[in-house]
């Protein structure tokens, strides 16, 4: 059988002497997958940084390196089976205690993240994945002057829109909307179209009867049970475009695994009665894209987060740390969500020594989103270390997500509260159960 992705893989031990081998594979593989030279080099340097981090912290461990072309990107995934007691070294902030007489002088993971377009640490059973992503270079769309026209005739959805139509719709969204409300990929319309073609993003496009582009809406599934959307982006006056786009999205996701739908970037055009308001979250600060439209102040802007269930909610039990009980009760009461709140506390539990947090970093927006993979006896310090390391690296919006399906995750709320985090909102069914988002500061 042919491997559609034609990925390349390498099995090796995490040892410094293999660095040149990894460099060669990543550099030449990335080039073969079409990354331009500059981008291939960045991916190579990030991979080198990762391997040396592994060699220092988990020397000799058997690593699988897989290089995969993703259509619009190339991914380098380092995976290995980690002994639970060694996992801590995968923390972004891991730098001390790496062995007798040794200490790390730099935060290799943060360095690797900084050189990448995407970076993720996650645990899949006992397998740790460190994934670097480098996107292809695409031509950028710059805002053009807009002229809003009335929709002519009936507005209709385009079935299976052509890539060219998606590209044009993305460019129109860039023209018509403030940059902070525009899905990041629209600034490179070719990338957005490639993501849609591969099914990494879903898009619906509307046109009027004269064939003029009327609107665009996109969504993706950040987890099996949830959908996040951006839009609706509307380019004509009248015609009910937003409602049609939303209806098409809802019809498409209604019979899937998804339980909950969230607005990632909801525009003012959305139909308010389709959603429930959950609260607000920071959107980050101005990014490196020049005039990103994120507002004047360094604090950036906040955005309403809306949601709707796609199924009937028949109630469930959630875990909570005593420190978040009153927050949760108030949130659930306001949302009319029936939850049995069970309290979870460290007390008496036989905890591992050290904690490990997963991380999703958006350097261009200064947003870091953390979640616990292991909660250990050092939780307080681990949270403090992460905040320190991320703040030093320029991340101003540090979010922590706890999935209340797991008592051990809920226990972390105590350490978060002690380190300057406060719960901002509940995302119903965003994970295995409801997810509480904490914000630092």
């Amino acid at each position: 059988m042919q491997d559609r992705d034609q990925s390349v893989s390498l099995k090796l031990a995490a040892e410094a002497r293999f660095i040149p081998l990894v460099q060669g594979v990543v550099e030449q593989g990335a080039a073969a997958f079409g990354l331009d030279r500059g981008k291939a080099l960045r991916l190579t340097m990030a991979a080198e940084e990762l391997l040396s981090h592994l060699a220092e912290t988990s020397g000799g461990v058997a690593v699988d390196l897989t290089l995969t072309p993703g259509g619009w990107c190339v991914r380098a995934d380092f995976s290995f089976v980690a002994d639970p007691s060694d996992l801590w070294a995968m923390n972004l902030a891991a730098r001390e205690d790496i062995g007798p007489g040794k200490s790390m002088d730099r935060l290799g993971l943060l360095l690797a993240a900084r050189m990448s377009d995407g970076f993720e640490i996650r645990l899949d059973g006992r397998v740790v994945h460190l994934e670097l992503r480098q996107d292809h270079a695409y031509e950028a769309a710059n805002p053009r002057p807009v002229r809003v026209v009335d929709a002519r005739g009936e507005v209709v959805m385009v079935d299976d829109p052509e890539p060219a139509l998606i590209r044009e719709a993305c460019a129109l969204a860039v023209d018509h909307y403030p940059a902070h409300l525009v899905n990041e990929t629209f600034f490179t319309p070719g990338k957005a179209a490639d993501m849609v073609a591969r099914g990494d993003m879903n898009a619906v496009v509307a046109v009027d009867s004269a064939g003029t582009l009327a609107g665009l809406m996109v969504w993706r599934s950040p987890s099996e049970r949830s959908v996040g959307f951006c839009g609706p982006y509307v380019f004509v006056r009248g015609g009910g475009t937003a409602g049609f786009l939303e209806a098409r999205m809802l019809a498409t996701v209604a019979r899937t695994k998804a339980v909950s739908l969230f607005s990632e970037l909801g525009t003012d055009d959305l139909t308010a009665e389709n959603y429930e308001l959950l609260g607000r979250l920071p959107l980050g600060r101005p990014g490196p894209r020049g005039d990103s439209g994120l507002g004047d102040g360094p604090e950036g802007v906040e955005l309403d987060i809306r949601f709707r269930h796609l199924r009937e909610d028949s109630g469930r039990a959630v875990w909570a740390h005593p420190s978040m009980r009153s927050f949760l009760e108030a949130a659930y009461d306001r949302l009319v969500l029936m939850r049995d709140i069970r309290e979870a506390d460290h007390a008496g539990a036989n905890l591992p020594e050290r904690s490990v947090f997963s991380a999703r970093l958006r350097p261009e927006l200064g947003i870091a989103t953390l979640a616990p993979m292991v909660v250990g006896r050092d939780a307080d310090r681990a949270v403090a270390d992460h905040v320190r390391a991320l703040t030093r690296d320029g991340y101003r919006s540090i979010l922590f997500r706890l999935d209340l399906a797991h008592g051990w995750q809920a226990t972390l709320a105590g350490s978060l509260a002690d380190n300057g985090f406060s719960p901002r909102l509940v995302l119903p069914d965003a994970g295995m159960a409801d997810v509480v988002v904490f914000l630092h500061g």
Partner: protein
Amino acid sequence: MADFDLRRLVPPHVRAFEAYRPSNPDSELMRLYGVDHLHRLNNNENALGPAPTVREVVDSFPPGAVPVYPNGDCFDLRHSLAGRFDKDAERFLVGNGSCEVIASVIKAFCEEGDNIVTADRTFAVYEWVAEFSGIKARLIPLKDMAFDPRGMLDAMDERTKVLFVCNPNNPTGTYWDKATMDAFLDEVAGRAVVVIDEAYCEYVDRDDYPDGMSLVERHPNVIVFRTFSKMYALAALRVGYLCGSVEVVDMVRRTHVVYSVNTLAQRCAQAALENDAPFIAATRAMVREARELLCPMFDSMGLEYIANEGNYLMVRVPMPDTLMYRKLMRKGVMVRTMTGFRFPNWIRVSLVQRPVMEDFCRAFGQVLDETA
């Protein structure tokens, strides 16, 4: 423990399929929502039932029958149906609810690469069974809230094996009249099997409503589905059946599990058919009265609604249907959300006895007032 690679063993279309999760039992829902009663207006059950003839069978069911297997292919019930509809008993196949016969029909006619054709906004089980069996479901948008015959015919190709027509449609209550049905069947011209799901036919009192039981006489490719869950109020017992030509039913029987209908269900279904006219008339009157109570209320609230045939109607609410559901549950009323039927922000309400309908009206009005 030996390695067990579940992913390798499960076909992709099953891995990709999302299992339907029925709601929690009433007792658990009542505890969570903090209510001491729950009006079930979510499943189109007939709260008037069962009929007295059925009650007698239930009350006198001998415990001695419990250790004994039921008749494997519902011999007596099929003969009752044969007498009722004046057909050969071999033309009936009884299942554990009509949901089971949906699966048997798809298994009998479809293999990989085949497709079925139905509507996008109808009873979901046709689409579900097809998809988890690896068969493509072509979903034709409703037109004016009704099945679109032209769209369905245009969607047919040489791999189309079954067309499912829900008549009247759940949830819109629209139906094809005799002329529409005849023209459709003429144009299908035997190229595929046409299933006419008449789950709610006993609620329809219209002269131009086509009777599937006579259509199967003229069209050898037609299969009619009926159920005892709706009008006959036997939902807990799970009995439904299909009727078609002897040849077609013989094929479907090959893929159908025998012994799936229990003894009590078989006997109650037979009893339900006896002298059913008064019970059907009383139920129709109840449904009519409920509809006449609700529709003017929705009119006065300026809400859009769809109330046609069947013991249900739909209303569009100014909020997510899933939020309306939670708010009504807090008041002891359970309705069906319609996002999953591709009618976001609509709820479907079963039409039952007046006092319950009045409770619904009160709760519904309160929720709207609270949100206004």
